Each structure stands twice: as structure tokens, then as C-alpha cells.
């Protein structure tokens, strides 16, 4: 048996707690010291005393929580620091700008907390770096073998084909402000789409922040009162509360890994579902578990059963990380 991981790193209602290091990872409540893997709201909460994160993630948090004033401790990918005998390093996770895996070493054992990650190439953030580990704590948002997502360029080709088929309609793409919006812009550019893309105001600031960090996204224009935008592509935050009636015969598009399942796409009332995700699909999850070489796997942020079943089938010690007090997303 292992000497218990839970002695120094364990889930608590506030989040994953590293006792000797004296910090939480992605805590859900305000804590004295937090290591934040990336800027999504279900990982980066306001109100902490001190936050350790990549400079990009700290900038994203500052943008999201302008009144929040934690002690900000930037740490670049690859840098190492010590905290109460625990060595801490951040490795790129490939999820969104600044996203990181937390690499913790204590008494000769290395634990990698993946945070959210993906393996698909994405020019808007640094690519995922596999790290050898004794214990790999992985997300499992798409932890079912039905989630093998198609090539993202093929999905973008579907969007552009639809724009060609319906030149009089406006394609309104639902995309989250942090990550998905900029990824869609970057994919469109890679596919050779060079028209301006129209941005809902809620997506403006985050996109500007990406540009500040040197990410190329091509020309975007604010929606303003630009008319019905027939034949154009609009990006706006997803959700039924987002109105589309100002646009010309809008084609509702949504870019998410969930769109792989038809029932989900139907439930969202989407006309063109695009299975483009910033999370690892089943292929990437299983490949990454293999890449880390970790004999112990803990599964969080998603349905754990299938991934645990798969890992156990390969002789790994795989279990859910409980209690997480967190919801997958």
C-alpha cells in the first residue's frame, strides 16, 4: 500500500488542502493562501489573502475581480518555490491562457494536480506539458468513451460551410468569455477566415487581455448598433438569456464538448452544435494518464466511474478524489 497521500494533500470542503505547504488549490471559499490553476470562475474565487498563480491567471483574476486585493504571487511555468517543505512548480495545462498544472513534491513523492487541461493544439495558450508523477489528480469533465471529440479544424469547417450555405443569415456563436471566445477567433483565422468577427461587449475585455499577452486574434469589432449582421459571425456569451432577435435569421451556434451528444445540443436549442472543447476528451484523458506514468490516479471534476474503470483495467490504483465540494464544468 502507499504511504497515504492524504497525510499531506487532501480534499476538504474548501478545496484541495496541502497541509505542510499551508495552501489550498483552487479553493471554493476565501482562504489565507491559494494556488489557482486558472482563471475560470469555478477555480478562481475572490477574497483570498494571497494567490499564487501564473502572471496571466493573476491578470485575468484582476480583470474579473477589480475590487479584490490579495497578495499576488506570480510564478512562471517552470519556476520552483518551496513552501513548508513542499516544492511547488506550475506546468502548462493547455486549457486557457495562463492555465497550469500544480506539480507538488514532498518527501520524495510527486503529485501532479492537472486542473482543467486539454491536449489539442491551441495557439492562444501554452501547450500542455506531461509531467511524470507518482500521483496524478486529473479532471474528468469528458470522462466517458463517447467523448472523442472531432478535429477542431473540421468543426470550424462546418461553421464556415454553414456561413456559405446561408449567406443571408447571421451566425451567432455562443462562447465563454475566457478561453473559448479567443480559441474560436484563433481557429477561424487558422481556417483562413479573414473577415472581422463581431464581439458582444461581455467578451471585449478578456479578448483585449489576450492581445496584451501577445495572442493574435485578427480583427474584431464591437457589436454596437451594427445592424442585423447578415452573413457575419458574431461571438457572444452562451445562454438562453442572450438575445438573438436583432440578428438576421440567426443561426444559433454553440461551441462546447457537450455538443458531441445530440440530446445536449437539442436541449440548448442550438441549430449548429460544434464539438469544440477546452477540456481533454476521453482519448486525451487516457493518453495523459499513461504519459504521467503515475501508478495512482485520483479523479475529480467530472463523472469519475468510467475513467476509474479504465485505469483499474490497466492495473492502476484509481479512485475518485472526495469530497471535492466542486462541480465539474
Amino acid at each position, binding site marked *: 500500500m502507499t504511504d497515504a497521500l492524504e497525510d499531506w494533500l487532501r480534499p476538504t470542503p474548501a478545496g484541495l488542502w496541502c497541509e505542510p505547504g499551508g495552501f489550498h488549490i483552487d479553493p471554493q471559499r476565501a482562504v489565507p493562501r491559494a494556488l489557482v490553476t486558472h482563471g475560470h470562475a469555478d477555480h478562481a474565487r475572490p477574497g483570498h489573502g494571497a494567490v499564487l498563480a501564473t502572471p496571466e491567471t493573476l491578470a485575468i483574476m484582476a480583470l474579473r475581480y477589480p475590487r479584490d486585493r490579495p497578495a499576488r504571487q506570480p510564478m512562471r511555468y517552470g519556476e520552483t518555490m518551496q513552501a513548508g517543505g513542499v516544492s511547488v512548480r506550475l506546468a502548462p495545462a493547455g486549457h486557457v491562457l495562463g492555465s497550469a498544472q500544480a506539480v507538488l513534491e514532498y518527501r520524495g513523492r510527486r503529485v501532479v494536480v492537472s486542473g482543467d487541461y486539454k491536449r489539442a493544439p491551441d495557439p492562444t495558450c501554452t501547450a500542455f506539458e506531461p509531467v511524470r508523477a507518482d500521483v496524478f489528480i486529473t479532471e474528468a469533465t469528458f470522462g*466517458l*468513451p*463517447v467523448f*472523442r471529440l*472531432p478535429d477542431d479544424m473540421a468543426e470550424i469547417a*462546418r461553421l464556415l*460551410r*454553414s456561413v456559405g*450555405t*446561408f449567406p443571408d443569415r447571421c451566425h451567432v456563436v455562443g462562447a465563454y468569455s475566457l478561453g473559448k471566445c479567443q480559441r474560436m477567433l484563433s481557429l477561424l483565422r487558422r481556417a483562413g477566415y479573414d473577415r472581422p468577427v463581431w464581439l458582444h461587449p461581455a467578451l471585449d475585455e478578456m479578448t483585449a487581455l489576450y492581445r496584451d499577452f501577445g495572442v493574435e486574434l485578427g480583427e474584431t469589432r464591437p457589436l454596437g448598433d451594427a445592424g442585423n449582421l447578415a452573413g457575419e459571425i458574431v461571438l457572444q456569451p452562451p445562454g438562453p438569456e442572450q438575445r438573438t432577435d436583432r440578428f438576421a435569421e440567426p*443561426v444559433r451556434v454553440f461551441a462546447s464538448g457537450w455538443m*458531441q*451528444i*445530440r*440530446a445536449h*445540443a*437539442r436541449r440548448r436549442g*442550438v*441549430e*449548429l*452544435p460544434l464539438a469544440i472543447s477546452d477540456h481533454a476528451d476521453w482519448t486525451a484523458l487516457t493518453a495523459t494518464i499513461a504519459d504521467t506514468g503515475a501508478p495512482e490516479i485520483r479523479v475529480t471534476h467530472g*463523472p469519475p*466511474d*468510467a475513467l476509474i*474503470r*479504465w485505469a483499474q*483495467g490497466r492495473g492502476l490504483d484509481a479512485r475518485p478524489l472526495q469530497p471535492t465540494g466542486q462541480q465539474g464544468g
Partner: protein
Amino acid sequence: MKAFAALLDALAFASSPAVRVRLMAAYLERAGGPDRGWAVAVLGGRLDTVRVRPAALLALAAERVDGELLRLSSDFVGDPVETAALIWPESGAAPSPPPLAEAALALAGSSRSAAPGLLAGWFDRSDASVRLALAQLAAGRRPPGVTPRLVRTAIAAAFSADLGAIEEAWHGQTPPYGPLFAWLEGRAPRPEAPAGFRPLMPVRALDETALAGLDLSRYRAEQQWPGRRVQVVLESGRRRLYSGSGDDISFLFPDVIAAMEGLDGVFDGVLTAAAGPDGPPFRPGPPEAFERRFGRKTVPRRLLAEVPVFVRLFDILFDGGEDMRVLPLSQRRERLEARIAGRSRFDLSPRLAFEGPEALDALRRQGVSLVLKPVDGSYRPGGPPWLVVGAAPRTVRALLLAARPGGLGEAGPSYSIGVLRDGAPAAIGDAPCRLAAGERERLDRWVRKHTTGRYGPVRAVEPALVLEVAFDDVRPAPRRKAGLALERPEITRILWDLPPDAADDLERLTVNRTGQA
């Protein structure tokens, strides 16, 4: 196959018929060769294959995937067909799926035991989108909201062709529709189908305002008959009875087919049950009996005798080989009358004479629905449709006789009403009052003030208040003094200012003896 799979994907989420047409047209513009024809067959529901059950698809997957992973996935996805397509293991090699034509032909020639093996072989060579398309094909699923008519509309859009011309060439064509596409691409003349269905003149309902604006002198009227619109075809010795949507229903009506002897041509009419074997002219029988003649695989001899049917004809499209459709209605009608005289199982829909709007209204007040057709109109399904004018809502001016409060579970009070018979009131039914609350309260105050006697909860009143009462029909009621009663009467207006003798006389109400509506 890849392009067709993408089309099915898009159709699964299309938001309107217009979008479906555009998606299919875009596919047809790009596709070529036999794939295009087989796509039309699949979309139009003309691909006859064995149906691979969803459970069989899941079983195929179970041979290749861990059972627990399959169960968890199936629970999450819900649809077994989709689950099997998504979870199928991939080798990592570049997909090389079968062309649609190959897959469609192989499935059509396959058996229930062999089809799953075919599918498994294809799945191994395909990506998820193609697997899902193949699985849907094998499961006999068609994209939602795609009708054969919509597919033909898409063909018309893709080839900038006339939908009416496509409809005409359509019947008798079989997948993969080589001659049809050859004609659409200008490589061959239009295929002519012997004993083929011709598109029918469409009908459209006309509202009161549009009716008021109509120049009635240009129209002829016929009664709209109950039953099913049919096309009767006898060409080159082949006899067919088609439903209004172009389905061949000949096998359901051997009696009609037999009676077509010598009826060379194409005719438009209504098929309905006859009240008895005698005719022509026939009297329509009960609709419930008529329904028994549909939705069956075989037609027992006994049923032919129990439910005799006849066809009431109202137009002729072809007389022998002569195309009558270009001629005006008046000339077609003459020819039709000459052709039909003295036949069994066929009679003529009589022309209704009307002098003007008043005569038309009188017909409508008798509960007759009418079809108006322009006298000089040709039979052109792409042109202006025939116009249907519904029966007028029937009303009578009645006297209030008594009021009964609504009991438990009843909607509200009901009011006994009557008309005048030899100057004295005769009851013809009990009607609810659906007027606004204020008007109802005023009515109840009037009832309390004019009560002449109480029989339990019922108050008899002085027959002095005139009501406008709408009703559906009049039926015989021998036990009533009036001898008849109203079907579903309802008080629609209180005519406070009218004197009691303004109520209608019993003679205005006559039982509709034919039962036609």
C-alpha cells in the same frame, strides 16, 4: 458518404422547413453520381432495408468495448444508436467509409442476420459522424421534418426546376432516379411514367374578408364532400387509385379498380363510403365505417360488402391520352359529364347554382362547405388554388324559457331556450352562456326579476327575452314538442332590445337529412 453524413447532422438540428430545403439543395448541388440519387431515396423514405434494431447496434458495440464503459456511456447518451456510433473503437487509420450508394445498395440487399456484420465492417472504416449516419440508415431513421415533398422542393431549388414538373415526373421513378437527374441536368427528356400520379390542384381556405372581395361571377361552386381526395388513373391498360399525397392505394380498393373498366384517363375526386349499394347518385355513409377500409394489409371480401365505397368525381386531367389540364374548367366539366354518365361506383359532384353572395350565404347557412373554382381556370397545381368556404356558423334567435344553476362539476348555469311554433314557445335545447361576466350577471338579474315558477333549482321565466344562439346542427327529437333539438347550442348574444315576437319560427330550423357537413 462524408458529405451525406454532414447533411444528416445538419438536418437533425435544422430550425425550419426552409432551412431543411436549403441544406438538402446545397448537398444536391455538390453531390453527383449515384450518391445523389440514393441520398434522395434515403431522405424521401424510399430506401427499403431490413431494420437493424437499436439493441442490435448496441450489441455490436458490446463485442468491442468494455461492458461497464458501454453501460455508463449508454446511460449518459440515452439513444442506443448514437451510443454505438460514438463509442465504436477507432484504429487511428484515416477513415475510408463506403460511398452512400454502396452502403444503401448493400443494406437494401441485406438480411436481418447479415446487416449487423455489414455495419461493423463499415464502422471500422468510418469516423463518428459517418458511423452515426450509417447507424441511422440501418435503423430506418429519417431526419425529423423531412417529407418527400420537401425533398422534391429541394431538388427543384438545386436544379432551378419547376416543382410541378418534378412532381409529375416523380411517380414511377425509382432510386437512384437516373432518368430524373438526367432530365434535370438537361441530358435527357423528361421521363414519362405510365399510370403515374399527377399533382393535384391544391385548395386553400378562404376567410370572410377575402370572400367579400371575390368576384363571384367568375366562379363555380361545388359542395365540399367528406371522404378522401383521390386520383383515378387508367392509362395504357394500367389501373391505379392514388391518395391525395400520391400513395398508391389501389390494393385497398379492388372494388373501385374493377369498376374502372373503360374509364381511360386521369380523374380527380373524393372517395367515400356509400350509405347503401344503390346509385348513382350515391349517398355518403358514416365516416367511421369508411375508416375501416384504410390501414390494412389485406382486404377481406366481407369488408367490401359491408362498407361499399364510391368515388365522387369533380375533374378530369386526361381524357384517354389527351391532356385536359390546359383547358378551362367549363370545358373539362363538359367532358367529365360525358365520360361518367351511367357508370357504377362513380358519380359526379353536382354544380351548385348560386346567383350571388346572398345565395351563397343561404347555402352556407344550411351547413354546406363550398369549393369555389374559377370558370376559366386551367388545372394548374402551381397556379392559384381552389378556394374553400366553410359553412356559416349557424345561429337562431331564441327565447329564454328557464334557467338552471350549474351543479358540481358543471361549467356554469344552463338556459333552456325555445323558438316559436304557431306563435307559442317550444323548447329546443339547453345552452350554456359564454358571455362576459358582466353580461352574465345582468342576465341572472333579469332571470330573478322575471321568474314565474320554481321547480327545484330551476326557475321558469317569462318568455320575453330574445337570445342569439349558435349551434352545430339540428337533430330530430320526437319526444319534444318542437320535434327537433339543437346540437351544441351556445348563447352568443343577448338581444335586450328585441320584442319576444322577434324570435325565430320553428320553420327556420330543418333537420339536415343528408348528414353532410
